[in-house]
């Protein structure tokens, strides 16, 4: 058996194929070139959008007819310009692109999503969502387990780019022994050459020797992870350089918007046919204990415009059938606003799923604003039901195994 190191050394790993596009990357390009929808599970991409800090669900999907909502939110209530979903509920006025998705039957809104005995700590609750384990902790992430499953069933030809996250760090929900690539730019993801008085020095082989030797020399802390990470870095950089670098966005992404930049990078990665299966982007800033309105309005505007551009870009590249976007946040916020025109940590909140694979509509039950638990909403849908629906119905993966339990699925997706 060849190890990956051997492949790398001998240049046998397909990502080393130089200028020719290696076969493992052909799927994306073929689908893109032919412009024909191909929804085979192996071509599907899940894009996870994390709304970090605890998004105010009640001001995102708004129960605008509910008198309790109006009373609870004397300064924060949205009563102008709500984009109605039905006679009770409406989207925040800034969610215009999401409303267009809704009108096209491509937006699912799952209401009242949470979990039993909710934790009001950002970090404890994030880890619950990330691990899909109500005990939280530092175990593998639920998407990490999915990527690891792909590896095990031999559906992970690149070994490095099936999971990508925009940014400098790998998010915990993608954590497992299967590598995930944090991307800040496709172009810069490469080893710089060293110029020794005009001579370009080969640095790759010596580096491989250093890291391999260090990890073999003895059981030292971090030696193994440094070695595998170097191999992943070289493999990923070769993969990225070997692809068609001619991506041109087929939609206008808003300028000066970090979330738009992140989604554009994800789009580039998908269009370049790198075999990405799960992508992760983060929009932070939702922890608005004070002066929430202007901040939250802007965040939702940025989110909506970025998602709108991303979906249009995917559509333009003929890839819309292969893209499912899902948003999540560690919790919603307290029903009553606080004295600082903000909201404190809460519990249940809605999730969005959007894209051509989605069966649009409302799912789950809107939580009661009257029957509260310490001022917080009681959840009506377990978040793991949503995960299970996506794993099983979209990614064609064994949801119960990956989630460590069986959860009722929702008919969120076209089969």
């Amino acid at each position: 058996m060849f190890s990956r190191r051997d492949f790398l050394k001998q240049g046998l790993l397909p990502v080393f194929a130089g200028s020719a596009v290696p076969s493992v990357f052909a799927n994306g390009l073929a689908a893109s070139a032919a412009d024909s929808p191909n929804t085979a599970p192996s071509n599907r991409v899940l894009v996870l959008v994390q709304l970090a800090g605890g998004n105010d669900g009640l001001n995102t999907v708004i129960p605008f007819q509910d008198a309790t909502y109006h009373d609870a939110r004397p300064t924060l209530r949205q009563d102008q310009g709500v984009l109605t979903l039905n006679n009770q509920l409406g989207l925040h006025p800034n969610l215009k692109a999401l409303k267009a998705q809704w009108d096209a039957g491509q937006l699912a809104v799952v209401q009242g999503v949470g979990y039993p005995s909710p934790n009001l700590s950002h970090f404890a609750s994030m880890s619950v969502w990330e691990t899909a384990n109500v005990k939280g902790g530092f175990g593998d992430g639920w998407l990490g387990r999915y990527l690891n499953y792909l590896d095990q069933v031999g559906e992970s030809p690149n070994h490095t780019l099936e999971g990508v996250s925009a940014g400098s760090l790998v998010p915990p929900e993608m954590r497992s022994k299967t590598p995930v690539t944090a991307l800040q730019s496709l172009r810069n993801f490469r080893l710089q050459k060293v110029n020794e008085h005009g001579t370009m020095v080969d640095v790759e082989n010596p580096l491989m020797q250093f890291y391999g030797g260090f990890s073999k020399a003895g059981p030292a802390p971090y030696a193994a992870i440094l070695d595998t990470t170097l191999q992943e870095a070289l493999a990923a950089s070769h993969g990225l350089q070997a692809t068609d670098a001619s991506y041109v966005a087929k939609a206008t992404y808003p300028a000066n918007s970090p979330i738009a930049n992140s989604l554009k990078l994800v789009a580039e990665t998908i269009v370049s046919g790198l075999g990405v299966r799960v992508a992760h982007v983060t929009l932070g800033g939702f922890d608005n204990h004070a002066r929430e309105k202007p901040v939250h309005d802007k965040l939702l505007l940025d989110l909506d415009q970025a998602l709108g551009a991303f979906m249009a870009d995917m559509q333009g590249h003929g890839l819309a059938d292969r893209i499912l976007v899902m948003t999540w946040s560690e919790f919603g916020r307290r029903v009553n606003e606080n004295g600082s025109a903000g909201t404190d940590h809460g519990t249940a909140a809605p999730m969005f799923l959007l894209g051509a694979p989605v069966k649009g509509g409302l799912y789950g039950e809107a939580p009661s604003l009257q029957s509260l638990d310490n001022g917080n909403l009681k959840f009506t849908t377990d978040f793991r039901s949503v995960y299970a629906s996506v794993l099983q119905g979209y990614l064609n993966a064994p949801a119960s195994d990956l989630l460590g339990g069986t959860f009722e699925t929702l008919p969120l997706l076209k089969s």
Partner: protein
Amino acid sequence: MDQAPGSTPTPLTPAPTPPPIWQRPVSRRTVLATAAGGAGAAALAALWRGGSLAQVLNRVQGLTHTYEGVFSSERTRVAHLLRRAGFGASPQELDRLTGMGTAAATNALLNYQQTPNQQLEASLPGFDPTVTSNGGRQASALQAWWLTRMVGTARPLEEKMTLFWHGLLTSGLDKSGPGQLYQQNQLFRRTAMGNFDDLLKAVSKDPAMMVYLDTETNRNGKPNENYARELMELFTTGIGHYSEDDVRESARAFTGWTLGRGKQRDALTSTFVARYHDEGVKTFMGKTGTFTGDDIVDMLVPLRATAERLTTRLFSYFAYPNPEPEIVQHLADVFQKNGYNVGAVVKEILTMDAFYSPKAYRALVKSPTEYVAQTLRAVGATSVSAPAVAATGQMGQVLFYPPNVAGWPAGASWINSSTLLTRINFAAGVAQKAAPASTFKGLPGLIDTFIDGNVTPSTRDALTQAATGTGQIPVTLMYFVLATPEYQLN
């Protein structure tokens, strides 16, 4: 490991090197340790049970073997000390402190108030905290200002502790202004080794913190829970030691303090306004009274959970992660017996055997800030360029911009394919610039300065080959040494 203390590095190829530690005969202790590991956590736990601190430390020494004996070299001890309690050293600095000996070097680091730092202060790029326009440029200037301090300070522990507090008592540019964060940074620097209760009381009224965690809007009758929650969850006891009612009640106690100067959000002062303070009776952790924020701090700091959490964090920052329970209990005792003095705990950590145990050697991953600052300090840089500041961000750490209120996750989370490439590419940039003019004495000098002369044999072979094969190639050699896995660790 093969350099005698203070000796001139010897040429590499001809000199016979003693067997590296990992090739030495397996000791009985190693066998025991392996057996314990094989028998699993239960056996290990049994091994720990009921031991005195001295016994525990013996076991710490014995349980890891890869780096056994590494600290027999005084030079390695001092280099380790300078990496952990500071930002590494130039060859000259390492020579000087090794000459002093570990004990004297430790004292000099700890008693930094006695070390003049005018040279640094005079060379710093200017930063005016009162400038509130041009936020982006102010933020970059602030980052460069601090990184320059780390590279050039004569009081490395002062900066290292300031970085510790920035990572624990977080505030960030996503909410607070650059001027406010400059002031907070100076507060951390002033009180870095002082009493924890004093620091927490000052931070509770610090404008950057008041904006970051919303105490500026916390008012009588309109409590805002943000600061109260994080004070307990992250700054003191940790989760599991307080109730949601404690969060709500202590938020009321913290009312009253607000920003000064017309309450603008970028104010650099804070002030107490009596009518904003909730004077009512609060019940906090089973006690009842008309508590203020300072009273809450006074109740939280003496709790054992606070002592254990803070000392675990300090030990993990300086020595190695997940300290043994006996070590935590010992340090928590030191903290409590010394009136919650942080300096006493730091002194204890830097002088305890566990700090110089094989388990502590290269047991931490250099944070991006450490990687960049140590490299620049070692090559004698006197200023910090904008690309160097940007590089720390691409490696995963933007100073004054922690990812959230929990600060930066450490250890393995610093290493992924993207951040490792950025580190290695940063090494290329530094080598390209610094190597031609450097005074390192060839490959042995480079290895001695950056990785204690302690390098994997195969790496040494490869480096030697690179050095001899192509003649004098200082850029490549410096690059390679900075890119080694050994140098990624601390």
